[in-house]
């Protein structure tokens, strides 16, 4: 009997030992050898980024010129004043605008500058005095009676970052507080013109936020503008469907140098641009223009314009040397038998520029040459294209594509024309604000969705390269948000661009795709011939041991009772 007991004990020990070996050695070994490599990702920081609280800080300097404040008011002018506005866009996105206004009186040099005969000259000489940092706004308050601007003009927005503001009518009895609060309304209008409006920022957040509260116009503006990218290729193509009758010459090199390059130089902080051109022969539009007897010309209606691009696009060719988005500008010279050709808008009127653009793609301009030669001219006719006319249209389209929105200034505001650079400093600032916000929104969405994906699918290998890209994207994003908060616009854009690049590189890394196709059920189907015969006896004998132990415990209890 004792021998039997002893034997039972030995069997029990053997079962326990085998189970222990399987659990302590076998399972970790199997786990270790079949595990996919997953580098560490900063999940907590990513989830912080998921709920984005953006703060945009604008530096405003308000300069009172002589005659706008009474002497005792001048003494009491506060040094600065901070005004904060908060908007909650949706559950996860909030915006805070911080307007930091500093007040001071004009220096003598500035007074001299303000005494120039015209506003444009005053703007220039003020610019010579001081250089303002990117994103800041300087408001010069000039007396109500100043002759610098015409009577009905309330504010004059210069080419740089300064604005001349006619001081609102004060009553002399007003305290300084009332004067300043009255001025604040005007300054706010100035800032929304020169830096950003709420609608623009919300439109820039369109990657994160469902668009519900945005006006149709800013929506259209943001849809038209090509997405933020580290570089753009701009291609000008001359389409000559009839080289037999027209021999076209265009001085594209000179035109790009004098019209396009200044704008691109100005935009250099936003992206790298490269410009090229080509001439395509026998390239035709996709639709047959209709002949209109009343004007004896061919016409393209606005409805058919959408069919024009696709057949042409096959000929344009993509840029072989880079993967940046391409902006196409096509100059189409209709063939001799289909000239002149006019584009008509929805209300059946001829479009004066004879051009149209397609959002995020580019523009097409029709250039009629039929009046440049008589019917008996010998073919092909040499035709020199008037590049000033063409580039005027393309430049306007390029501004639209790049997102330099046409601002709608409040009544009483006069905007100085941007001049030869094609872009005023404050217009660039507007672009920088919305691009920074857009980049931050894009990068944060990309990173959060990548983290979510990696979290959900455990089979994906995360190698060190991806992990490094993710963490550099996260750090860049954090710096971009911090710089925005501090009001350093140029740095904010720089970091946000880096964040977008790193997050896209991580998201589209080909190594993420490798092991996607081994779902768990198939893996276990392969393991079954090993697992089933091994585990069933162990589990059964463990169960038996446990129940025996219980039985013994119960017996003991009964005995002691």
């Amino acid at each position, binding site marked *: 009997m004792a021998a039997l007991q002893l034997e039972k004990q030995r069997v029990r020990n053997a079962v326990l030992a085998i189970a222990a070996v399987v659990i302590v050695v076998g399972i970790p070994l199997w786990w270790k050898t079949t595990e996919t490599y997953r580098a560490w990702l900063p999940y907590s920081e990513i989830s912080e980024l998921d709920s984005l609280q953006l703060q945009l800080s604008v530096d405003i300097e308000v300069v009172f010129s002589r005659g706008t404040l009474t002497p005792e008011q001048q003494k009491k002018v506060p040094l600065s004043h901070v005004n904060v506005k908060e908007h909650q866009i949706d559950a996860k996105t909030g915006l805070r605008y911080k307007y930091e206004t500093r007040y001071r009186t004009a220096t003598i040099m500035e007074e001299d500058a303000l005494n120039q005969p015209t506003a444009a000259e005053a703007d220039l000489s003020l610019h010579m005095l001081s250089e303002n940092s990117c994103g800041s706004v300087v408001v010069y308050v000039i007396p109500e009676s100043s002759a610098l601007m015409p009577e009905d003009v309330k504010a004059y927005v210069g080419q740089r970052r300064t604005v001349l503001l006619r001081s609102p009518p004060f009553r002399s009895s007003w305290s300084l507080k009332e004067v300043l609060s009255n001025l604040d309304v005007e300054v706010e209008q100035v800032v929304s013109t020169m830096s950003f409006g709420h609608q623009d920022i919300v439109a820039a957040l369109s990657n994160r936020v469902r668009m519900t509260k945005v006006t149709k116009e800013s929506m259209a503006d943001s849809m038209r503008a090509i997405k933020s990218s580290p570089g753009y290729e701009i291609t000008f193509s001359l389409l000559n469907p009839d080289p037999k009758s027209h021999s076209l010459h265009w001085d594209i090199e000179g035109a790009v140098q004098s019209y396009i390059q200044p704008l691109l130089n100005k935009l250099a902080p936003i992206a790298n641009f490269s410009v090229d051109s080509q001439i395509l022969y026998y390239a035709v539009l996709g639709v047959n223009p209709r002949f209109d007897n009343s004007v004896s010309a061919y016409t393209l209606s606005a409805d058919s314009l959408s069919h024009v691009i696709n057949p042409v696009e096959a*000929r344009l060719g993509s840029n072989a*040397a880079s993967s940046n988005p391409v902006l196409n500008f096509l100059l189409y010279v209709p063939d001799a038998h289909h000239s002149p050709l006019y584009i008509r808008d929805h209300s059946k009127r001829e479009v004066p520029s004879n051009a149209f653009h397609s959002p995020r793609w580019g523009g097409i301009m029709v250039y009629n040459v039929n009046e440049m030669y008589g019917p008996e001219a010998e073919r092909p006719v040499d035709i020199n294209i008037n590049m000033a006319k063409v580039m005027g249209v393309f430049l306007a389209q390029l501004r639209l594509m790049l997102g330099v929105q046409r601002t709608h200034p409040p009544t009483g505001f006069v905007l100085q024309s941007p001049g030869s650079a094609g872009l005023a400093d404050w217009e660039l600032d507007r672009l920088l604000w919305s691009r920074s916000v857009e980049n931050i929104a894009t990068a944060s969405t990309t990173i959060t969705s990548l983290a979510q994906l990696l979290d959900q699918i455990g089979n994906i290998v995360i190698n060190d390269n991806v992990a490094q890209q993710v963490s550099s994207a996260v750090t860049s994003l954090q710096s971009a948000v911090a710089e925005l908060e501090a009001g350093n616009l140029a740095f904010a854009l720089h970091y946000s661009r880096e964040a977008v690049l790193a997050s896209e590189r991580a998201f589209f890394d080909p190594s993420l795709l490798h092991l996607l196709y081994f779902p768990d059920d198939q893996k276990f189907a392969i393991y079954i011939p090993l697992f089933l*015969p091994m585990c069933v006896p162990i589990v059964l004998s463990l169960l038996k041991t446990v129940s025996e132990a219980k039985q013994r415990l119960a017996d003991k209890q009964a005995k002691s009772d």
Partner: protein
Amino acid sequence: WSLCIISTPLIHWTSRSKQSAPARDQFQEELVIRPLHSGDIYASFQFRTLWDIDFLQERQKVSHYRLFPKSLGQVLSKFSVRELHISFTQGFWRTMQWGQPFIPSPPGAELWVWFHDTVSDVDGNWKELTNVLSGIFCASLNFIDLTNTVQPSASFKPLGLGNATDHRFLRYATLPREIVCTENLTPWKKLLPCGSKAGLSVLLKSEKLFHSSFHSQAVHIRPVCQDEQCTSKAWELRQTLNVVFDLYTSSQGKKEWSLFKMFSRTLTEACPLATSSKIYVDITDNPELNPVTPLLSQAVVLGDRRTYSVFDLTRAETFGQLCSLNLLLRWKGDSDMLRPLLHAERYVAGFGLQTGEIHTVIYNNHPYRAFPVLLMDSVPWYLQLYIHTLTVTSKSRDNKPSYIHYQPAKDRHRPHLLEMLIQLPPHSMTEVTVQFERALLKWTEYTPDPNHGFYVGSSVVSALVPSMVAMNTNFTQDQPLFSSFVPVKEESSYFVRVYTEPLLVNLPTPDFSMPYNVICLTCTVVAVGYGSFYNLLTRTFQVDEPSLPLEKRLANLIRRIRGVPLLA
């Protein structure tokens, strides 16, 4: 009618020359038609764009294109390419029946590129370049990687300006399995200034071009001299398309053809952008040609003096009354074809799936002259060559190569490269053999349909062949394009490159469901072993009392019924 007269290219030509600032680029097109000895027709298109510009000059960025295709120009400047040659070929050129082609090419795709010597990361540029080119030409050039790229030391010298000798900047690769079809022709046609809308390119209809015995299209880009004095550089883009139509069998043995029969199109105009647009018809064997042209031209091509009828498409009278040109040619006599002086073929010998032997046979058909040839072989790493078994025999005597460049393969990293300079005795057959062993690949390395076999690219034989007639060495602009591709340096010889057949080699191919079977089998064996072991350890063994024999049990049963005590 009137339209046709107004738009005659002749007037076009005069107006172009009137232009004050001459364009810096020009375009030429040319078609050569040669009736072959076998009754087939050989048609060779050449389109040449010359651009007086230097892509590689610093600071001056080239970004404005007129006739030169933008996509190729961007590639040249981005990857600092000095010379680029790419060809796509369907079918095999039968040298012994058809003679030498104007521009030879191996079956499948071939790409060789000389990079500029400022490039630091040649392999990186090459990798990216092949990817971009595969996008431009819709071909599988992205399968070119280090395992099929070689750097030949002597066989591929630059054809354009400059005497680069450092083969570190040269990359050569072939894809013998590449299948060429319409999707490769369309992007190729898109590079032409006139597309397929006007000029000779209207004849390029894919349904006819690919219904042929041989089809080869190529792009060659190289720097050339702008003029005879060679004061400045120009870029030359040559697009060539060679096709051999098997009209002899399809027209019931009649030796006749017309443009319409071959291409199902006739010609109505030259490309208005072309400065010259010509058709050359080989009439050396006195065929019957309709319409006749007074213009005749003689050219010495590949060591043979030929006579051509020339049709100048830029002249209105070429098209005659009907405003359309349909050449018709009939020829009867079995003329003597000049036997190609150099010819090569290749095959794989041996049996079984373990070892084999590659035989390359080179023929020198010259009756009394010996000349040296360069043989280049690029063999994938999975055929492990035993280079000590390399033998070269001519006229059953050992022929020791005067130069051997051999770079052994590294598994999964680089192929074998074997280059040899062999002297071919006159009127002889030289056989080069080398043995190899077939490697076992990893199961993911097999191509789809591995039982079809693995292709090994053609070997390349390059030689300066002694010419029977004096070659034309002076370089003039109005030389026909087909005779000006390879510059002739001396009168007594001409350059020929011959490609052999690609090889198809079977490798030991496993059953691809094997991994699963192996896993299952292993698991089962382990489980059975484990099960017996477990049983041994956890069972208690007791002596079993033997049970009663059957008759006793039966007796017990009866006894129980009767109520009698049971038996023990």
